[in-house]
């Protein structure tokens, strides 16, 4: 049976130690990718994938990412809600991986 070995995990720890130190910070921004059936059908998984990929290469330590269920706005899926400290929540609609990267860049 194949499992992740101690070696695998140690390598991951080494590779990420430095970037994680850079990223330690207060959580000022919460990004929620809505992952209900409509969202998934419209491509929400790939939007989330792009978000995680961009964050893995960035220095932003203040962004936390979450999934949640359906927002109830199925006609505009994929929907992504961004909540920043001291700001009204913004719901980005009809998102795709490219748009997600743009939103992140402009944050």
């Amino acid at each position, binding site marked *: 049976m194949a499992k992740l070995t101690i070696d695998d995990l140690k390598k991951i720890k080494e590779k990420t130690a430095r970037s994680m130190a850079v990223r330690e910070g207060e959580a000022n921004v919460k990004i929620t990718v809505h992952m209900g*059936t*409509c969202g*998934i*059908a*419209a*491509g929400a998984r790939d939007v989330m994938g792009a978000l995680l990929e961009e964050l893995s290469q960035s220095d932003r330590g203040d962004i936390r990412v979450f999934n949640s269920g359906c927002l109830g706005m*199925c*006609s505009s*899926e994929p929907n992504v809600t961004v909540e920043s400290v001291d700001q009204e929540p913004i719901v980005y609609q*009809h998102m795709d991986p490219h748009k997600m990267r743009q939103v992140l860049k402009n944050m």
Partner: protein
Amino acid sequence: MTVSDLIDQLKLEVAAGVSGLDREINGGYCGDLLSDVMGNAPMGCIWLTIQGHQNIVAVAHLRDMAAIVLAAGRAPDKACVQKADAKSIPVLLWPGPCFELAGRLTSMGIAESKDP
């Protein structure tokens, strides 16, 4: 154009959802993969498919569709008819392929939808 107008022009048979014939049509969509239709069909469109089970009514309801056309001589199953009647979503029948009907609808002016 309403669903009723379309039925008159193309002589389509109504299999269910008779109470919804006054719905206004906003664009059209072709597709048999429900997740794709759910995610991408224009709101208020007319949907061409060969799927005849009750899930099509749920998808049509979600996208506030004007009507569903079952092509290729397919017929809706009993549960589909019941749900379509309950939700007032017309299910119409077309004996030929989707492609042929899509061409006819386009030439009749049911082209791009007004909203994304």
